[in-house]
């Protein structure tokens, strides 16, 4: 293995690295064993606490929670793609009157914490139901992020494409709809799938407004059994599994349809082309 950080190790260094590996491995094992002991000493490994997750009735409840969570995330991403397309194209508009409001909306919803937005939708003048507070909140936030992805995608299409289209007499709308967007979509799909991971993780915020979904179901379970730790482990495992599937899908699409090209999304508050870096935790 070559690396910028160090040369290819020789036999003596390799021996030394192996020794470090053994020591580090033992230390990590000791840490894991100690943690298991702490869990065991506090009775956290007791079967009764894990039992709900092996009981069909509770598995069914969790499954329903997972379906609710996935449905919310899917609906929100779908709506966000539409919103993102509108705002993204709006940001590229030649008309100041369209460009400036689009920019303002995108910057605002990218910079405001999602939870603040959800609470506002839930308690504010709109008084949305818990379900719609989460879905609308997710739509606005992810729509703003996707607008940047759309914009970056359109800009990533080689300039000659649009120029050629104008040269053969196409109108602005035609160039966007028939030439730029279809090519941009291909580059954007991996980024959109990655955004689904963010949306899926953020559905957990429904916990605060008691929206249907995994975290709310989880709270009901741990209130009933007092197994907070076990529930958190199971819920995390479900989320991690779903997200790994999505990430694998994004990587596969990237390899198969896009190749090396990566989208560069500007940071909040940065002028286009100034600062690059994918946000979105």
């Amino acid at each position: 293995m070559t690396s910028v950080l160090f040369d290819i190790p020789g036999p003596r260094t390799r021996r030394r690295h192996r020794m470090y590996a053994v020591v580090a491995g033992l230390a990590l094992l000791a840490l894991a064993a100690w943690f298991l002991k702490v869990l065991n000493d506090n009775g956290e490994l007791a079967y009764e606490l894990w039992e709900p997750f092996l009981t069909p009735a509770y598995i069914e409840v969790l499954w329903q929670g997972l379906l609710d969570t996935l449905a919310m995330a899917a609906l929100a991403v779908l709506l966000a793609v539409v919103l993102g397309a509108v705002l993204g194209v709006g940001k590229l508009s030649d008309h100041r009157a369209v460009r400036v409001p689009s920019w303002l909306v995108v910057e605002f919803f990218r910079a405001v914490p999602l939870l603040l937005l959800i609470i506002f939708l839930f308690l504010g003048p709109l008084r949305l139901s818990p379900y719609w507070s989460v879905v609308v909140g997710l739509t606005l936030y992810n729509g703003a992020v996707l607008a940047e992805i759309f914009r970056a995608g359109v800009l990533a299409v080689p300039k000659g494409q649009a120029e050629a289209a104008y040269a053969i007499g196409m109108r602005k709308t035609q160039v966007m709809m028939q030439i730029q967007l279809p090519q941009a979509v291909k580059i954007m799909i991996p980024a959109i799938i990655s955004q689904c991971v963010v949306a899926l993780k953020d559905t957990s915020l429904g916990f605060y407004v008691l929206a249907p979904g995994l975290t709310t179901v989880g709270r009901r379970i741990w209130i009933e059994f007092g197994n907070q730790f076990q529930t958190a482990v199971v819920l995390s495992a479900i989320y991690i599994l779903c997200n790994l599937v999505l990430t694998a899908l994004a990587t596969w699409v990237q390899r198969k349809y896009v190749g090396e090209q990566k989208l560069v999304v500007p940071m909040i508050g940065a002028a286009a082309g100034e600062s690059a870096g994918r946000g979105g935790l």
Partner: protein
Amino acid sequence: MEDLIDQSDLVLQAFWLTIQLAVLSGLCSLLFGTVLAAMRVGPVSVLRAAATTYVTLVRNTPLLLVFVFVFVAAPNIGWFVGTPFLVKGVIAVSVYTSAFVCEAVRSGVNAVALGQAEAARAIGLTFGQTMGSVVLPQAYRASVPPLASVLIAMTKNTSIAAVFGLMELTGRMRYFSNNSADDTVIFVVFAALYIVLVELISVGAIGLERRWRAAR
């Protein structure tokens, strides 16, 4: 609106708590994230695997569940029982954000072309000189934009502390929303406070980038 003005001290306290959460979590996650990144790009296979596992697990867990572990589950095994809420909040946010810091730093190191280090070694620079004057300066520069994005997301993520009883900006907005009619104004005020923090990070990052920019 009158509520906000009458109780502006509460708003300021909440703003200060959010700033504390953001700054302390930022420092902790930069520190721990850099250690993780060092493990991930280092030559020791076991540490590499351990850091990779940590990053994969934590990155795919919602922050809310990390908070559940720290605030709700940990007391069951006798951890963090008397710990102040601020400290627990910082722990939860840092555990989560370090995984992203690790990736940002690693992407910075990966951005340095292999030829740079090879050339440095070829002209006889020692390991320390190669690192100190060739590789790391370029790696820092390349990791500024992704690190800024991570810190911005982290600042927004401190809002989740509100769910677990910290009266920072989001918790305070909820308090005011319960009590007054013109919630929209209140929302805009609190949103603006977050935007101030986000823009500060953004401006700082752009400044650093400009200062460290080199001709290529």
